[in-house]
Structures are given as C-alpha cells and as structure tokens.
C-alpha cells in the first residue's frame, strides 16, 4: 500500500506530508526505539505513542518513510521540523496502538521479521 492508503485506513491527520505515494510494505509498532532498531528488515512505517525527536532519528536510521502517532498523540514542533528535513511523513490517528496495527495488518501491511 501507499502512505496515502494509510491515511484513509486509519482516518489519520497529516501533520507533515513527505512522499505520500511511496509504497510501504512493512510496519513496526513500539514505544521503545531500541526495539525498533533491532528489526533488520526495512521497516517502512513506525507506529508509536512516543513523541520526542528521537522517534524521527530512529526512523531516519531505519530508512522509514512514515511515522504514525497513535491515540491522538501530538508531537512537539521540533519533531515536525526534523521530519520535514528528513522528508518523513508524520500522521496522527485517534486509534489506539493495537487497533491501528490491526487495521493496517488486515489491509495487507505485514510486520517485519527479526533476525
């Protein structure tokens, strides 16, 4: 699916639009960034409730294209400006983590495997 599809599936608000037409195949949901970094497969999408700028740094190191803040969490302004620099899309959904992951999974997005 494309980032654009995620917006529709999660009824998400776009806080920063990167490339919304980029294809994403896998996702990872976590509030622990080292757990995210432990996943070796290229993760295209990160779902999290954590809102500090290190979330964007983590996504950057993993070549992710999109970060989704669950439960309506609103990131700080410095996070948005860092995401803009790195061209990473920032979305916000009112769904809780479990529901958001479930909706994406049932619509075809898979989890990456950990080696």
């Amino acid at each position, binding site marked *: 699916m494309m980032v654009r599809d995620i917006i529709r599936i999660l009824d998400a608000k776009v806080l920063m639009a990167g490339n919304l037409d980029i294809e994403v195949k896998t996702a990872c949901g976590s509030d622990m960034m080292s757990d995210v970094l432990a996943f*070796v497969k290229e993760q295209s999408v990160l779902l999290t409730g954590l809102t500090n700028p290190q979330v964007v740094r983590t996504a950057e*190191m993993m070549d992710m294209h999109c970060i989704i803040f669950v439960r309506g969490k609103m990131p700080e302004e410095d996070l948005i400006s860092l995401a803009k620099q790195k061209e990473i899309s920032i979305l916000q959904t009112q769904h809780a983590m479990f529901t958001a992951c479930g909706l994406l999974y049932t619509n075809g997005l898979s989890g990456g495997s950990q080696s």
Partner: protein
Amino acid sequence: MINILSLDYVVPGDDFTRAGEASSDVKRKLKQIGYEPDAIRRVAIAMYEGEINMVIHAGGGLVHVEIDPERVKMVLSDHGPGIRDVEMAMREGYSTAPDRVRALGFGAGMGLPNMKKYTDSMKIDTEIGKGTTLYMTVLAKSITIG
C-alpha cells in the same frame, strides 16, 4: 570513490534531542559517496545506538569515523562511569538505564546487542571510573542481514 574519509564529532552530553546528529551526518556522507545501502544502514544504526548510550550513561563523548572503500571504522570514546559487567551489558534486555531514559524510548537493554548485531567487529575497552571506548567496524560488502 575517495580513498579515506576521516570524520570527528563531539557528542554533547546535556542535550538528548541532539543525540543522533553525528550518525545522521555520517549516513548522509556515505550516501553522497555512493556507499552500499545495507552497510550505510548498519553503520547508522550502530553509531546511533552508541551516541544514545554516550548521552544516557556518560555525559557525551567523542566519535571518530574512518571511511574507505572496504570498511567503515568507528571509535566512540567517553569519560563516563565505565561498564561494570560487559558480559551482562551484551545481553538483550539487560539495562542499567534509569526510568527517565526509558520514558524517552531507550534503555530497553538493546543498545550494545544491536551494535554487535549490525557490525562486523566490535570491541569494548572499559574501566570503572575512567570511561569506555568502543571500536566498531562495518564491512562494505559483508553478508547482508535479513
């Protein structure tokens, strides 16, 4: 490709929001010189974890990076408290990080294990009360993980 690129960074210890700037810069430079993408990601992740550790545990430190066509060498040195039990610190899930660090999304005990996983060689020199120096190498064309 140029033969050897040598880079040095100061990792400030008092500003968590700036942790990762050095790794980001190294990643950008590796992309610019056309380095192998898998190696770039492994360097970025390993160095980023190292930077985070420096800020969390050691009040910052220094990073020296050497890039040549075959490998990327990273040396991360700090004057922090040192690692009391390296063997335990290498175990996934073992952490001495305080709750305030966990609240920021780190301190899950995955830092050093991740660094080892993503690099082709890693060596830790540490002395209690003196500090820690971490040597890591990523080969440009090692076996792709995953």
